[in-house]
């Protein structure tokens, strides 16, 4: 079983991203479970979502993911509080570089904000970055196809699907390891 954490702030589309990721893995033939972590409704507060996937077994775990195997960080202000397993994977949304973290997790960087803004997805104050980050994660994770990601974006996003798929593609191509 692999546990994936998505970490951002309310309004960044964390819940939708988790749901899309669960759908992508479902199309890949995995057993999947998507568990948003909920508090009271409040924009801007930290928002986390977790996806569990398993190639074979039904997923019976019904409690919060404590330390994910892999994390996608939508908002760098949250970095301090995010945990990832030893030898795990962390995908960070960041424009510049980040200094080597005190972890032996593999760190990947993508500038999802710039990609989103270059395609006029959202506003500078609130760029729509979830599809770009999923595109980057597709490359980093390497266990689902971009085609299935594009399929899910089409199903879940509807009329702006093409531009979101473009964002995912750009992120897929530009994500790099630290």
């Amino acid at each position, binding site marked *: 079983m692999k546990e994936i954490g998505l970490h951002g702030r309310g309004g960044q589309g964390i819940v939708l991203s988790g749901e899309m990721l*669960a759908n992508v893995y*479902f199309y890949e033939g995995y057993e999947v*479970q998507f*568990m948003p972590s909920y*508090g*009271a409704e409040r924009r801007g507060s930290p928002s986390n979502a977790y996806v569990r996937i398993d190639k074979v077994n039904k997923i*019976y775990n*019904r*409690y*919060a993911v404590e330390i994910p195997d892999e994390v996608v960080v939508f908002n760098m202000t949250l970095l301090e509080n995010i945990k990832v397993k030893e030898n795990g994977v962390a995908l960070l949304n960041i424009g510049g570089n980040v200094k080597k973290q005190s972890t032996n997790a593999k760190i990947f960087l993508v500038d999802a904000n710039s990609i989103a803004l270059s395609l006029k997805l959202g506003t500078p104050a609130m760029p729509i970055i979830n599809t770009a980050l999923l595109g980057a994660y597709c490359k980093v994770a390497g266990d689902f196809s971009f085609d299935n990601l594009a399929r899910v974006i089409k199903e879940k996003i509807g009329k702006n699907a093409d531009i979101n798929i473009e964002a995912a593609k750009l992120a897929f191509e530009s994500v790099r390891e630290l």
Partner: protein
Amino acid sequence: MSKKIIMGGNDAIAYAVRQSYVDVVSAYPITPQTSIIEKIADFISKGEMNARFIKVESEHSAMAAAIGASIAGSRVFTATSSQGLLLMHEVLHWASGARLPIVMANANRAVAPPWSIWAEQTDSLSQRDTGWIQFYASNAQETYDLLFLSFRLAERVKVPAMVCMDGFLVTHTKEPVEVFDNEISEFISIKEKREILDIDNPKAYGALAFPKDYMPIKLEQNDAILSASNVFNDIAKEFELISKRHYAATEVYGDSKADVAIIATGSIAEVAHIAVDNLNKDSIKAKLVKINMFRPFPKKELQEALKDVEKIVVFDRNISLGKGGIIKDEVAGSLGINNIIGFVAGLGGYDVTEQDMEKATKDVLSGKVKEDSYLWGEK
């Protein structure tokens, strides 16, 4: 043709309501139930569902309006949670006493104070004496299936039914659910004939009953609820032919020659599957006895499932303050057994993992835990 869709328990309930020819919905928002009624409102607004949705000003009125619509002849659905269910308490009795087959979804949520929006079953278990059939679903597929089964069962025995599901852990956790296309239509379109308000036959319902009349009426009601056990099996068989999914009041998983049985409901029962697998790997012969239907109480099924085990360990995500876990107490009392230890666990959404359950079970078997206890601070 049926297909699999990723959805949570709440989505699955709304989806099933849409397919159940429901005439009237009467509901009031409360976390973590709200997304059920939002989805239903969405279906109605898009013309995908033909029903009246009464947007009442409280849960008390939600159930009261449901009573009115049901006694006038409609198939009625409502949903609530925690404080809302407690506010309904009086009218829950009214619905069951009037023998109205209302179906309700309850998102199990802890009761304040202090405020909590997370999973706990004390809300619905404290309604166990209201004369409702109670189901506890462990995952989204079960919420979906039990909704159809509830309508058919409630209407057959003329007893209202609630489908309970742990807040967030079942209501919002999304997973693949196999949903029907049209193949459920015939099953769910069956509506039993029952007595309703009729201007050509003007009767009064619920009038004052003197002592000589009251008790026989209550005993008849009790018989009707008890009869739901057998009727459920019949309806579940019918359902299985369509869905290929088997439902029963209780469900056993693990080593059939087990020495120890774990009893659980809802989301904890789901996790218990892993605990049982791990215990069996550790050469401890264990099985899970999952309670799906709590009212009528599945005494016969539990007797059968527990007859050869040495020890029984119950995990209760609920508490009768001043007494302990409600399910443990009911199992012990109903079966008259004392080889049973209960753990109160996971109140207010506190996580219960397989490791917690394995350790607790081992502690019981080793004699380290000799009486009812609780799971806390294990992590």
